[in-house]
């Protein structure tokens, strides 16, 4: 394999995992933007999505398309349920309580999954059966192609939704100033629910795409994926949607290159080192707005 081909392949790998990170990071960013909560449970929603896909395909023998629907819908409902049960009663309490609750929810989902499905991994049947495409002498695997296209389409839809619909405007208003938005007649509860639903749906799509790339489901798969997606969100500037996309791709590419130079054991370390450097040099991230503290 020529050097150029290797580089191209690694870029493709990076973009594939990067687009998954970006989808998940969008969920983190939206939720943070609207209620300034680091939703630790977000990564575990992906885990639940992967298990749902596995249940639908391996156990119920459903068509892959239905399996995808089940996973995405399940994630959406789960996300909204978590918000209603765990986060809503805490609206107005200190941020640290909210954060600890989120950690509790994440912990709960992981351990519940472990009890129900066992600690070992379940292998998910192939969801996408698409042959590789040869483009200018380089093979592009079907899953990579589908992942990139799906992620791109989801992001486009999200951007339109946030920028050009009534609900999107309400979301932006609430994240700008919750109190003022409420006075202008925006229903805060509905908007927050909608944000969680949207974020969780993206996580559901992310979980399906992740299952295509790594066809296994285990109870702790969401933790590391979620943390890395979170790093992506911070890197791009938390609260900023384009930032989350850029951050996701950046983290994916960085990981691919670290692996390519033979340091894959340090992959996780490098991701967190990027996080620390970003937080120290530019805490608001690449595209984030600076925040000022008021007395």
């Amino acid at each position: 394999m020529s050097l150029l081909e290797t580089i191209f392949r690694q870029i493709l790998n990076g973009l594939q995992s990067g687009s998954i990170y970006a989808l998940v990071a969008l969920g983190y960013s939206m939720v943070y933007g609207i209620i300034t909560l680091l939703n630790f449970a977000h990564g575990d929603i992906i885990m639940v999505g992967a298990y749902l896909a596995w249940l639908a395909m391996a156990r119920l023998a459903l068509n892959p398309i239905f399996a995808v629907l089940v996973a995405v819908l399940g994630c959406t409902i789960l996300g909204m349920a978590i918000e209603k049960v765990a986060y809503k009663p805490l609206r107005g309490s200190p941020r640290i309580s909210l954060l600890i609750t989120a950690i509790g929810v994440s912990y709960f989902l992981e351990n519940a999954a472990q009890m129900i499905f066992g600690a070992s991994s379940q292998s998910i049947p192939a969801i996408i059966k698409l042959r590789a495409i040869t483009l200018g002498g380089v093979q592009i695997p079907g899953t990579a192609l589908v992942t990139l296209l799906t992620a791109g389409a989801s992001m486009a839809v999200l951007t339109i939704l946030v920028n050009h619909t009534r609900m999107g405007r309400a979301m932006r208003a609430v994240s700008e100033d919750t109190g003022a938005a409420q006075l202008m007649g925006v229903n805060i509860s509905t908007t927050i629910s909608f944000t969680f639903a949207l974020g969780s749906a993206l996580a559901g799509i992310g979980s399906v795409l992740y299952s295509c790339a790594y066809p296994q489901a285990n109870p702790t798969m969401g933790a590391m994926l979620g943390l890395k997606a979170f790093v992506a969100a911070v890197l791009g500037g938390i609260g900023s949607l384009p930032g989350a996309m850029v951050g996701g791709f950046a983290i994916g590419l960085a990981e691919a290159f670290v692996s390519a130079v033979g340091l894959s054991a340090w992959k996780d370390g490098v991701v967190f080192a990027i996080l620390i450097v970003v937080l120290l040099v530019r805490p608001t991230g690449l595209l984030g707005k600076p925040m000022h503290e008021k007395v």
Partner: protein
Amino acid sequence: MKTKRNRIPTLLGYAINLALFAAFLILGDGLIQSGAISKYYSKVVMLIGINVILAVSLNVATGYLGQLPLGHAGFMAVGAYASAIFMTRTALPASPAFPIGILIGGAVAAAFGIIIGIPALRLRGDYLAIITLGFGEIIRVVLLNIDDVLGFTLTNGAAGLQNIPKATTFLNTFVCVGLTCFLIHTMMKSRHGRAILALRDNEIAADSCGINATYYKTLGFTASAFFAGVAGALYAGYIGILNPGGFGFMKSIEILVMVVLGGMGSMVGSVLSATVLTAVPELLRAFAGYRMIVYALLLIVVMIFKPSGLMGTYDFSLSRLLGKLFYGSSRKKQGKAGDAR
């Protein structure tokens, strides 16, 4: 300025506490030596001691400093590895070597606390939580892979360190527990401790009163890391085998659960909840599978219904109790008069 006494003299208070603690040590040690407490239960008791140190030390950073570090297991890992490496290589016999090992564990963890604290404490709230989480994970990755870089065996990668001398006993564990509680207690009652509490309550106000925020935050954070390292060293001598997998994010959360449940800012709360949360699962081994789920639900339920934890910021004080007994309970009135002056 003469106020009527409502407390027993400080020194007497310390003497009584010390006497009671010594009695507890002698009693406990006697029971274990004579075999009245089985080997299994004495192991559980030692684990309780280690977890008490972990919870009390994390409480310094969460309860007193008001931050939320999520990498406490990282400091514990550093302390455990530092002391284990020393213990496996030293030529000294175990009894003089172990205290040195514990101090080394604590000192190395404290050094990491400074290195991590100075940059991390520039950030607040969520960002601090995340950056400490990142550092905790980096420590784990480094412990896993450092041997490839160094070219010789230091941490032994994923297989971990083995044959660490099992030097932890009931006596040295609980001496460490007592020292930890005492040192943290006296630190928090001193002007340094008051500065730390002031920073927690209102950083901007404290800053404008001339409290050096960076210094005191780093101080609190480093103290927290030091005692986590001590607990790690004890843990290494307790378990005999170390591998990086045991010091992940989950371990940090387990310690956090103890602190949050007991009440952030209450030492007695940390001690009680660490004791209960260690003892109950050990005694109910049959339900081990449910333990984590119960932990998680407890965390959520406590946050929703009693966010200050079971004890809030209440701290038990024997001196205060004795003072009430001897001088009557007119404490409240006098307290107010004292404040006005």
